[in-house]
């Protein structure tokens, strides 16, 4: 059977739903959606371009077994973590967390869209904050703006110059952080060891849950 046929055969089967339930944080809630669309309508990004699929449609796609489309979707990455959908959902689906969970899973298995800016921010932020235990705002900004190379970085930095200057003038952006003057935790060694262990345990847990292929 060809790939297309396999996919068709998997339509409306539990396979992908199960995969999401096992692998994505809060994925077990996907099945509870009743397609009212309140989440989609409540999303602050609803009226801006950029969604492939609204949350409730993502849930339906999961139930319909549309694995490739869901994992590659841009939609989960639009979340601003405002929790509007979460508090309103008539079925009490924690939509925010489910969207994060699906995004994380797609990213983890390398199926998420490439060059997704929020995804990049997520990585940058985490790397930044775990390196010294606390966020280094200047470095975070630098890394963000230069992610696409020097040229666009300068352009963005120029665009953001007024913003940055405002913060510097008001004493809220300490350029010294860029040269190592930032805040740090003392027990960096402990933090790093702790996180390494956590990553390891998490990987074990997810692997144990995964249904054997076939």
């Amino acid at each position: 059977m060809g790939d297309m046929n396999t996919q068709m055969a998997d339509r409306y089967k539990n396979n992908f739903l199960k995969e999401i339930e096992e692998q994505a944080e809060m994925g077990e809630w996907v099945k509870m959606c009743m397609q009212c669309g309140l989440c989609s309508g409540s999303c602050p990004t609803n009226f801006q371009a950029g969604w492939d699929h609204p949350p409730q449609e993502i849930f339906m796609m999961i139930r319909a077994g549309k694995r490739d489309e869901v994992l590659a979707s841009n939609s989960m990455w639009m979340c601003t973590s405002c929790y509007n959908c979460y508090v309103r959902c008539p079925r009490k689906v924690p939509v925010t967390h489910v969207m994060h969970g699906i995004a994380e899973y797609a990213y983890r298995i390398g199926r998420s869209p490439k060059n997704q800016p929020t995804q990049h921010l997520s990585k940058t932020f985490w790397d930044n904050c775990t390196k010294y235990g606390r966020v280094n705002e200047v470095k975070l900004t630098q890394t963000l703006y230069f992610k696409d190379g020097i040229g666009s970085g300068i352009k963005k930095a120029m665009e953001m110059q007024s913003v940055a200057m405002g913060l510097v003038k008001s004493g809220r952006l300490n350029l010294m952080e860029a040269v190592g003057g930032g805040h740090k935790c003392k027990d960096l060694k402990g933090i790093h060891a702790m996180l390494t262990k956590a990553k390891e345990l998490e990987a074990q847990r997810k692997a144990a849950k995964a249904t054997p292929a076939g």
Partner: protein
Amino acid sequence: MARKEYAFYPGCSSQKGASASNYLVSVESMCKTLDIKMTEIPDWNCCGASVSYAEAGELPRHVMNARNFALAETNLPGQTIVATCAACWLGARESKERLEHNSGLMADTQTALKEAGLQIKVIPEVRHMVEVLIEDLGYDELKKPVKKPLDGMKFAGYVGCQTNRPFGISGESFENPMYLDKLIETVGGEAVKYDQKVTCCGGALAFSEPEKAQGQIKDIIEAAYDGGAEMIVTPCPLCQANVEVYQGQINKRYGTKFDIPVLYYSQLMTLAYGGSAKEAGINGNVVRARKLEEFAAK
């Protein structure tokens, strides 16, 4: 009234020289007046914030918060953790809730904490500064030290998301929380009515996809102006920064003429309690709150 003591979790943005450093300044002034003792959790670390979800995964994120719990519990036994930052508070509360309801996750967390020589016995309570103010002191108590009421000043109380959802300040509705308006009124200001009180400022999207977030910020500021506000007040550092610092860019993008100061509730309280501009950290505002500067000087 007995002195109240809390384990303070200031968060990354409130540190000296960071984007919400003026928030910290004003909180310290405010607490001094209200006789609240905030002891910083020794060697606290970042909460991870919501946006790290993709890279961090589940356990590492909770472990980061768990480390703070363990440190608080060990060094400041019996004290409630109080966060001033909405994201820190949310991250910590979420981790607390998950760990308490998921024994597997908790066990793994303990294993990881062990690597840093820590462990958790009981996760301390985690509260937002605002909860301390309105629940442990109450509006009447907060009103007592007011020396200079902010008479005639109109503020848009901008609650935003993360102090409001998914947990929220207890007793408040998600859709129309009133505590911020009440705080404004407590210090003599007028809380204007406008319909973007709990609209999202764009959160982390303001960094990653500024054009999307700025549309939302524009709506918020516009509504505040339409409601007759002279200034915006917020309990959240990210809301503060997003709504304040992009006004220039928004003006450029949309042809607006925004120039509205965005303050923290703690700044208003400090000023009303008779504090100086410096003590209130209003020198740290990018959009200058001239009216308040003059008020403080009087």
